[in-house]
């Protein structure tokens, strides 16, 4: 006769085990976010105070990194002209997953003060998936750090899955990118 004292151990399915491991990974990922700063606009001037002694980003485990391969967050600060957008997309696609995009200032939201320029894109969300917007022109360091804390909360709640959206809607993003930038035929050793 089986003992009734202990409830039998339920066997976890593979999906559940994967989810648990992913949550463990999320703990590490949200506590050690490394930035790749793509500073084109004037919002970049708000980053030094938020990194150095005054607001000290490093206490959240964040820090600047030198290359896209090492970074977790692509920080887009300010407007993007068509010329820089192409480089931004190259950079985004080089980053290792899971990766997040934080857009700083009002320019990536709706064009900001450059909304009627012929050379500047208005919505960054059309080209790469954005996880967190920090609005303001320019946002002050408190709001920048608040944006990062929001990102950490979102990683905890599994809502920051822009990189998954980029996989799912890859054709849609590619089409938008091509419409704005035009196709380029590259002449080098890898494309012949």
């Amino acid at each position: 006769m089986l003992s009734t004292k202990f409830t039998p151990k339920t066997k976890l399915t593979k999906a559940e085990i994967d989810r648990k491991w992913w949550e463990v990974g999320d703990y590490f990922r949200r506590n050690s976010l490394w930035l790749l700063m793509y500073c084109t606009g004037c919002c970049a001037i708000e980053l030094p105070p938020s990194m150095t002694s005054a607001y000290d980003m490093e206490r959240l485990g964040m820090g600047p990194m030198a290359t896209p391969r090492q970074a977790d967050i692509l920080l887009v600060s300010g407007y993007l002209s068509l010329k820089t957008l192409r480089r931004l997309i190259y950079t985004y696609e080089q980053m290792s997953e899971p990766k997040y995009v934080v857009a700083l200032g009002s320019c990536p939201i709706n064009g900001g003060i450059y909304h009627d320029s012929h050379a500047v894109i208005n919505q960054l969300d059309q080209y790469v998936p954005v996880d967190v917007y920090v609005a303001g022109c320019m946002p002050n360091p408190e709001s920048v750090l608040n944006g990062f804390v929001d990102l950490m909360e979102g990683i905890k709640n599994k809502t920051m899955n822009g990189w998954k959206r980029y996989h799912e809607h890859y054709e849609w993003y590619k089409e938008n990118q091509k419409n704005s930038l035009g196709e380029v035929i590259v002449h080098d050793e890898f494309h012949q």
Partner: protein
Amino acid sequence: MTIVNFLIGIGIALFGFVLQTSIGGINRKIVGRMQKRHGPRWYQEFLDIFKLLSKRAVSHGWIFDFGVIMALGGIVGTAMFMPLTKDILAFTNNGVNYDNFFIFVYLLAVGMLGMAMSASGSGNPWASIGVMRALTTMLAYEVPFLIVVLTIINYSGQSSLTGIMEFQQMAGNNWFLIAMPLGGIVGFICLMGMLGKKPFETYIAPAEIASGPMVEYGGKQLGMLFILHEISVFIEVSLFVHLFLGGAANIFEFLIKYFAVYTLANLISNVNGRFKIDQVVTFFYKWPLLMAVTQAVIVIYFGWVI
């Protein structure tokens, strides 16, 4: 040699990793306080490493992947020979300790060459520049360092680390840092070069060559490189402690000396700028080399040892 020796060796490598990662985190906090910041948590370096291991990574061909594994294996293999104190040591047989200084010189090169191979395998020009600078820096600091260490070996009559340790702990003998003050200073400067601390940080240089050899690494490979870096720092700082600071009679003494040396190197690093690569070579071949040769002449020909 039994399986127990190998288990102790792997235990020492693991201990070195945990020790250096914790002390590295504490040092980030110390530097933060120095700059009037709060600083990260003391276990931040562990979080960084485990995060990197949890990420997805791209590969640039099998040389790229294999080189990282070879480097990590080489460094772990080197750390297995490192004595922690006079008695805690993996490979020992009937009173003969297998911890000759030259084992470390040879085996450390496996790690460095593995990393150089892997970084060159990525095909990125920054990585090649970084590797070239790393090897040039190595060429620069090895010469004065080896002169000083050979002086020590000549004076104490043995090249085993535990032997040198016991020689310094004997009554009447001073630590070599005090007995050979010029040599001690040269040893510390060369340690800064080995650790890649600030005046000699030329081969990392994040703002200049985008972190040099590590430029193409991301995710798991970068995580392995971080583990490699922590263990190699453990080896280099322990070498300095054993050669110049009289080693350690017990594990607490070792921890205190280790912490003091690493923190001092880190503090000096944080108030300095960065040399150019030609300045690094000129610097090492000028003052440290001169001081090392003077020390060797003083010790070997005159026998003036404090």
